[in-house]
């Protein structure tokens, strides 16, 4: 005999009402609508935005921005790997040199470093090998070179710390297993340690790449013709300040979005063998 009070399957289920969520959603939608409205009726000539979006000066600036971001990152990653390995070296001279580099270039603001490199001629009017050749520093320290050095070297200091964290994240047993196979230190780093460290290194380096795209805008102050500099040049002439800033912002958004997608791909590649079901090969 079954008690009828325990038979409830014929009753109707009434879902819980999420009043709080509804109120929050309504507030957010209203706020977004207000912002959109403000921009729509604000003093922005949207047709100018469209018009200047693809003019040659902006396109050149865009290319310069991308080129500078990539080259500065290449310099930064190369220096980062070298200094991270130096930092972990048993040789105290190497280790402390790396520590000093990281300390110095992380501490000094990027903008200030750019200005220093750009004005290097004030310290060293000429450069070269004494008695062999020498060139005026101003000819060497073009805006491009100054920006590349300034951005790449300070990036190297940050990347060194990221790479070091990556190297330290690899289990001691991996070093020992590689040594036991008779690998030399360099081969061990390249074949066994780095591929595993990459899992830890890629996400922050991806973020820093994105940061670098934006950081290149600092180079506008030393006359490097990246996109912000191009936009400024145009609005100095036609006074369409906001419209041209929006053009530049638009392109930053596009570049950063593409980079984020690439970052996801690379992360997936280096997660090989990491977790169950993550293997694709």
């Amino acid at each position, binding site marked *: 005999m079954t008690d009828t009070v325990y038979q409830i399957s014929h009753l109707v289920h009434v879902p819980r009402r999420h009043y709080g969520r509804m109120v929050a959603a309504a507030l957010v939608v209203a706020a977004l609508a207000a912002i959109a409205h403000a921009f729509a009726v604000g003093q922005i000539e949207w047709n100018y935005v469209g018009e200047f979006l693809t003019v040659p000066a902006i396109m050149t600036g865009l290319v310069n921005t991308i080129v500078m971001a990539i080259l500065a990152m290449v310099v930064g990653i190369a220096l980062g790997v070298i200094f991270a390995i130096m930092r972990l070296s048993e040789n105290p001279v190497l280790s402390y040199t790396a520590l000093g580099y990281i300390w110095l270039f992380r501490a000094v603001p990027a903008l200030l470093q750019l200005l220093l490199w750009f004005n290097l001629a004030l310290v060293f009017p000429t450069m070269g090998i004494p008695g062999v050749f020498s060139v005026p520093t101003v000819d060497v320290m073009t805006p491009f070179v100054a920006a590349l050095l300034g951005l790449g070297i300070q990036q190297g200091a940050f990347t060194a710390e990221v790479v070091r964290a990556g190297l330290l994240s690899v289990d001691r047993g991996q070093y020992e297993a590689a*040594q036991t196979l008779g690998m030399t230190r360099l081969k061990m780093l390249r074949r066994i340690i780095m591929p595993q460290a990459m899992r830890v290194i890629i996400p922050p380096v991806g973020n820093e790449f994105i940061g670098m795209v934006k950081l290149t805008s600092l180079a506008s102050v030393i006359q490097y013709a990246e996109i912000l500099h191009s936009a400024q040049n145009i609005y100095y002439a036609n006074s369409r300040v906001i419209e041209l800033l929006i053009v530049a912002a638009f392109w930053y958004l596009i570049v950063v979005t593409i980079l984020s997608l690439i970052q996801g791909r690379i992360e997936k590649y280096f997660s090989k063998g*990491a977790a169950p079901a993550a293997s694709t090969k």
Partner: protein
Amino acid sequence: MAIRTTPAAADQNMLPADPIVVAADVRKRFGSNEVLKGIDLRVPKGEVLCIIGPSGSGKSTFLRCINQLERIDGGAIWVAGELVGYRREGNFLYELTDAEIARQRRRIGMVFQRFNLFPHLTALENIIEGPVQVLGEKPAEARERAEALLARVGLADKRDAYPAHLSGGQQQRVAIARALAMRPELLLFDEPTSALDPELVGEVLGVMRDLAGTGMTMIVVTHELGFAREVSNRVAFMDQGQLVEIGDARQVLSDPQQARTRAFISAVHK
């Protein structure tokens, strides 16, 4: 037992390759803690030697000294007739370079308690890594040998699996195959079954038993006294950095001569 090398030998760096391992008064300290207090040992070719002893007695440290994961502070070790870590010229011992140490390590395989497979490589890739990258073998050749080794440890169907997808027992068998792929003259095992669930211990010991049957020289640090009794030729008991007793496996395990050995063995059997 001091080691006497014949001064008449033409090349003092090339002593007879048998015994495979000669340890003479090996000492090792960590700070003020003397972990190895003068180990003397000879392991002839083809012998399976089990080292037993309480935790912290220095068993792992001694194994790691043999393949130079640790540097010794005193005494000397020869592997296959070659002095470990140094080159002898007359009365001078020259410390070897990193590359020379790497070369010496090639012929000594090591199997770790925690497997230490390379997680970013498949089982097969783990096995061919050493032969291809270190010995310069052709990939196709190495691959063929690796497949044979995988079959030998009973894992032919796991060649493309990443370590994370393998059980502990399977990982340890791949690790043994990886060590064998280097064609070592000596295999060191540091508690190869201690990290395994009890039901997986047997499959790894089985592979090691087969290996012993092929005449491979093996030094095995283990707590598996059953394995030691059944497979090894000799058993050494280590305590507080000293080899307290060494002898025929059955004899040491059934009828130890030293009180410390007796106490240890009866404690393990409880």
